[in-house]
């Protein structure tokens, strides 16, 4: 075989691949779900999606990113369905016409973890904002996601409710996922805000302790949003709607409540309950 022929064959194969790939991308069987890392890393989706796929003719591709990136992907038409936990940003997304049919699905909660010795003395406090204030006032590090994720937005809201400007001496914004942030907090012996799921999954490998939980301001509502089909015509809106409806159906809600990690319930089904931007932190701050 001489070289020109090889090259021509390669060109044909390449061309054929390029021509057929858009067809593959628009495959009606595939639902692209952009979701926060917390739902994916906790193993919840591994539990839910096979149940959904068994009863429906769809295959779900999970793209685990921060809420900011997930919303961006929805805006760019790179996903069919979003599952996020930043109600305010989600509402803005829908208001801007990027998304439709937002539905509350469930909530989980955040916890504050830190070094076992707890140099900022936050253990036993009732209010998350007070805990944050003491962390900022102590000579300790606080590792922030700093990645525009839902967790990061929650953290920023908590700083705001504590009247503290993030960026104090010990503030370390690292722009990375929850697992990495927990690892860094452990290495640096600093505090951080984490969703309970990632914490449960990782706590064995960390030199950190759970120091604060239970404040209603730490609750974290999740919602699903369909990417607006009017903006892009190659979206699998039908599949996305099927998945969203299954998640808020009785069956889906039961599956969420049944999910256990290390024997603990992580997510609480809350379909039908009102999800508003005021819920969680802001509601707590206004009390």
């Amino acid at each position, binding site marked *: 075989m001489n070289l020109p022929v090889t090259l021509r064959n390669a060109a044909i194969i390449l061309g054929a691949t390029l021509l057929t790939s858009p067809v593959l991308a628009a495959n009606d069987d595939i639902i692209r779900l952009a979701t926060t890392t917390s739902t994916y890393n906790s193993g919840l989706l591994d539990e839910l999606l096979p149940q959904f796929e068994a009863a429906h003719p769809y295959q779900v591709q999970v793209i685990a990113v921060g809420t*900011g990136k997930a919303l961006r992907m929805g805006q760019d038409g790179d996903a069919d369905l979003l599952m996020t936990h930043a109600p305010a940003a989600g509402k803005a997304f829908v208001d801007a016409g990027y998304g439709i049919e937002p539905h509350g699905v469930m909530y989980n909660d955040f916890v504050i973890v830190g070094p076992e010795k707890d140099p900022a003395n936050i253990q036993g406090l009732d209010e998350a904002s007070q805990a944050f204030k003491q962390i900022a006032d102590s000579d300790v590090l606080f590792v922030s996601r700093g*990645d525009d994720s839902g967790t990061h937005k929650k953290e920023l809201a908590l700083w705001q409710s504590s009247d503290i400007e993030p960026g104090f001496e010990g503030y*370390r*914004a690292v*722009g*990375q996922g929850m697992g990495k942030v927990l690892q860094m907090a452990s*290495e640096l012996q600093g505090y951080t805000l984490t969703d309970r799921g990632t914490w449960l999954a990782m706590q064995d490998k960390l030199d950190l302790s759970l120091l604060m939980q239970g404040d209603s301001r730490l609750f974290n509502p999740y919602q699903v949003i369909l990417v607006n089909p009017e903006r892009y015509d190659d979206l699998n809106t039908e599949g996305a709607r099927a998945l969203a409806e299954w998640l808020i159906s009785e069956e889906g809600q039961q599956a969420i409540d049944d999910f256990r990690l290390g024997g603990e319930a992580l997510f609480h089904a809350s379909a039908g309950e009102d999800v508003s931007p005021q819920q969680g932190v802001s509601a707590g701050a206004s009390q």
Partner: protein
Amino acid sequence: MPELLDSTRAALILLVSLDPDLWEIIGVSFRVSLTAMALAIPPALLIALALARLAFPGRWLLISLANTLMAVPTVVVGLMLFMLLSRSGPLGEWRLLFTQPAMVIGQWLLAIPLLIAMLHAALQGVDQRAWETARLHGAGRVAALWRLLGEARFGVMAAIVASFGRIIAEVGSAVMVGGNIEHFTRNITTAIALETLKGEYAQGIALGLVLLVLALILNLMLGILRGRGQQTLSS
């Protein structure tokens, strides 16, 4: 497409307006990589000279080792260093993880094998007669070695330029042992890799442009050096 154009325009504005956050990130990159180079060049030169001039046991092994390590992915170096510097690792007491010195060490480790291999090749390429002529004309060992470096200067420069290019553009080790901490260890590559996850592309494009221009400058330098090297060879 308008998206890309908008982001690029925003990127250019960030660059031209001397956006402090952006230039701080660029500063971290240069500080870390230049420090790593400054610390890597002297030992690499000594080893390369020894490899080129001395016949000692294990010489061949050392050359193979340098050539092998050159191909090690940067994340692997990052991982090894991470395990060493971790609180539970043997060097955890140093408390270096997620600091600029840790990034310097990582890039030092990446630069050393490349420097040694390229410097060795450059010195090996110098005519044996250069050493003999210098020695017979009264040059001491050190003076003769110095002359060898002078004869190999284009290759030496190429080694330095290529190594600097490698470490300033590496992301694997910087993100693992640096941690991308804003104002501390966030450099060009970790910012591009992780900050774009926020969906904000302008900064990433701006930083990418900086690396692109740098790569262009380094390659032009290499091209000029190579051109001059060939000129002297052919004459």
